[in-house]
C-alpha cells in the first residue's frame, strides 16, 4: 500500500494507469462512509426484532397435577399455543405400536418425549407446539383417523404422538422444549 502511494506521488500525471494518492483517499473515505452508513442503518432495522420484554416472557411454567388423564390443556408460550396432553395407557400403546410403521416424518414416541436437557420424559405427558406444520392452524384434540389431533384447516391427521399420518402437513407437530421442575410441573422454554 505504502509503495503504491509512493509510486503515485512520483508520477502524478499518470492518473489513468497508476492509482494516485487522491484515488486512495476517495476509496478510503468511501469505505469509511459506507461502514458508517451501515452502522447508522442497523439500529433502524434491528429495532424490529423481539424486544427485551418480549424475550423476557420466553418461558412458561405449567402445573400438571390438575390435568386429568385423557385431557389436554392449551398453554401459551411466547404467545404461541402449546399442547400439554395427559395420555391414557391406550394412547401411549397406540403411539408406540406405530414407532416403525411407515411414517412421513419417522420418529419414535420415546424421541418425542425427550426433555430439553436430553433426559427422557414421562410417557404420560406429551408437550407439543400446537401449530400445524402445514400452514400453522391449531389442530383439534382427539380427532381424526388416529385420535391424536386433526387440523381443521386442510385435514392433516396426527397420531397420539403428534406424528403426521395423513394430509398435507409435511412434518410432525414440533416438540416444545420443556423440562420437569418437579414431578408434576414443567417449564417450557
Amino acid at each position, binding site marked *: 500500500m505504502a509503495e503504491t502511494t509512493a509510486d503515485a506521488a512520483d508520477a502524478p500525471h499518470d492518473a489513468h494507469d497508476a492509482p494516485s494518492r487522491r484515488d486512495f483517499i476517495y476509496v478510503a473515505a468511501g469505505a469509511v462512509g459506507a461502514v458508517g452508513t451501515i452502522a447508522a442503518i442497523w439500529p433502524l432495522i434491528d429495532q*424490529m426484532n423481539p424486544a427485551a420484554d418480549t424475550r423476557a416472557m420466553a418461558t412458561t411454567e405449567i402445573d400438571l397435577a390438575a390435568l386429568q388423564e385423557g385431557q389436554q390443556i392449551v398453554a401459551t408460550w411466547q*404467545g404461541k399455543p402449546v399442547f400439554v396432553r395427559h395420555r391414557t395407557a391406550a394412547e401411549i400403546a397406540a403411539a408406540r405400536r406405530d414407532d416403525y410403521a411407515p411414517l412421513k416424518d419417522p420418529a419414535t414416541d420415546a424421541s418425542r418425549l425427550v426433555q430439553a436437557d436430553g433426559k427422557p420424559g414421562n410417557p404420560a405427558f406429551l408437550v407439543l407446539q400446537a401449530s400445524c406444520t402445514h400452514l400453522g392452524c391449531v389442530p383439534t384434540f382427539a380427532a381424526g383417523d388416529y385420535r391424536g389431533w386433526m387440523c381443521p384447516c386442510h385435514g392433516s391427521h396426527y397420531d397420539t404422538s403428534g406424528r403426521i399420518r395423513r394430509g398435507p402437513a409435511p412434518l410432525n407437530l414440533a416438540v416444545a422444549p420443556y423440562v420437569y421442575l418437579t414431578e408434576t410441573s414443567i417449564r417450557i422454554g
Partner: protein
Amino acid sequence: MSGPSTYQPKNGFTRWLDARLPVMRLVHDSFVAYPTPRNLNYWWTFGAILSFCLAVQIVTGIILAMHYVGHVDLAFASVQRIDRDVPYGWLIQNIHSVGASMFFLAVYIHMFRGLYYGSYKAPREILWILGCIIYLLMVATAFLGYSLPWGQMSFWAATVITNLIGALPVVGESIKNWLMGGFAIDNPTLTRFFSLHYLLPFVIAGVVILHIWALHVSGQNNPAGVDPKDESDTVPFTPHATMKDLFALTVFLILFAIFVFYMPDSLGHPDNYIPANPVVTPPHIVPEWYLLPFYAILRAIDFNVGPIDSKLGGVILMFASIAILFVLPWLDTSKIRSMRYRPVARQFFLIFVAVCIALGWCGQMNPSYSMFTAGEFRAGLHWVEGGQSIQRAVTAESERRAGATFEEAAEAMKAEGAQIVMVDRSSPTDATLTAISGGQLREAELTAHSLDELEAQIAERKAALGAAGVPYVEIERNLPFEFTVTRFAQILTAYYFLFFLVILPLLGLRETPGRVPETIAKSIRGAA
C-alpha cells in the same frame, strides 16, 4: 408526445407565478392540452378511477386512524366503536373496507387491459414496471390493513402469511421473528402493521406520479395499438378524456355505493367479526377475494422438488407469478401490440383470464375437496376368528433390509399354514411376528365416497372387531383416482406460467397477424 408547451398565462398573477413555479403550466400540459388518441375506449378510464380510489382510501384511512386504536386488546372494539358510535363512522369505515375491494377490481381491469392491448411493449416498459410496483405495494397495503381490525381472519391470515416466510431455508425463522417483533403474531406485530399501513399508500402515491410521468413521455397506447400518426388522430385531454373519465367514474361509483350501502360485508368474511383468538383456528382460513388466485398458486404445490419442500415451492411460485409480470415486456416477442390483430393470441388471452378467475375459485375452496373421483373408495378387511397363534421373533441384518426380511418371514409362516400374520416392530431391526392358524378366515369389503368416510368406516369396524376379541385385522386399501381442487389448481398454475413463458414468446415468432385496416395504419388526414 406532448410536444412544446402551449400554456398561455392569462393574467398578471399567473404570468408572475409561471416565471417562478410553472405549476399551472404543468397542470395545463398534463391534463388540459395533453393529446389523447381519439379512439380510446372505456377500458382506458380505469386509470382515472384508480387515482380516485387511492384518494378515497387515503382520506377515509386518515379519518379512521383518528379513532382506531392499534392495540391487541382495543383494536377490535375500536373498529366496532367506529361502526356504531362515531358520527358517520359506519359510512367511512364501510367506504374504506369496500374501497379496498373496488380498488382491486379496478386495478385488475386496468392490468388485463394492458395485457390485451399490449400496453407493456416498447416504449412503455418502464410505465408497465411502475404499474407492477404499484400493484405489489397495494397487495402489501391491503394485507397490512386487513390485519388491523384484529378479527379471527385478520389474525390467522397474518399467521399463515408470516409462516410462509418461515419456510425460507436457514434465515426464514429469524426474518419471521423480525417481522413479527416476537415469536408469534402479537401486539408488536399489530403496531408495526398499523404504522406501515399508514405509510405505504403515500409511497403508492409517489409511484403513481412516476407512472403518470412515464405515461406522458411515451403517450397513451390505444385499442388499435398503432401510434397516432399526427395531431388529427388525437384530441385534447380536456374536455374529451376528462368528461369520459368522469362519466365512467360515475358508473363505477354506483357499483361502489351499492356495496357500501346495501351489502358492505358481502365481500369480507364473517369470521372477522369474531375477535382474534390465538389458540382457536377458524375452520377455513381464506384471504380477501382479490388475493385468492395467489393463495391457490401457493397451495397448488403439494409435492417436494429435490431440496425444495412443498411449502417453500408454493412460496416461490406465488412470488414468481407476480415477478413474471415485471419481465413480460421482454417475454412477448410479438411486435404487434393489440390482440385485436392477433387472433390466436386473443384466444389464449381469453383462456388466461378464465384461468385467473378459476384460480380464484380454487383459492376459496378446501384444497382436498374432490371435484370428481373415478369410482369408489374401497378397502378389503381380512381377519381370523378363533384359531391359535404362534409367535416368532425375527431380527433383520440391517435397517435397510428390515422390511424385506419381515415380509419373507411372514410369507414363510403363511407357507407353514398360517391364515394371517401380523408384524409388530419393536426396534428398527427387530419384530415379533404373530401367525394365526386354524380358525376361520373372514373378509369384508367397505366402500365409501370419500377417503375420510372410508377411514371412519375402517376405524369403526376395527373397534368392533377388537371388542369381539379379534387381535389383528389386515387392511388393503384400494383408492380411485381423485381429481381434487389441488390438482385443478396445479393445471391452472401451469397454464398461468406457460402463457407468459411459452405461449407469448413462441406465438410472437410464429403467428400470422390479422391485417390492420388502411384507415388505422394511415393517419386520418392521409386517408381522407
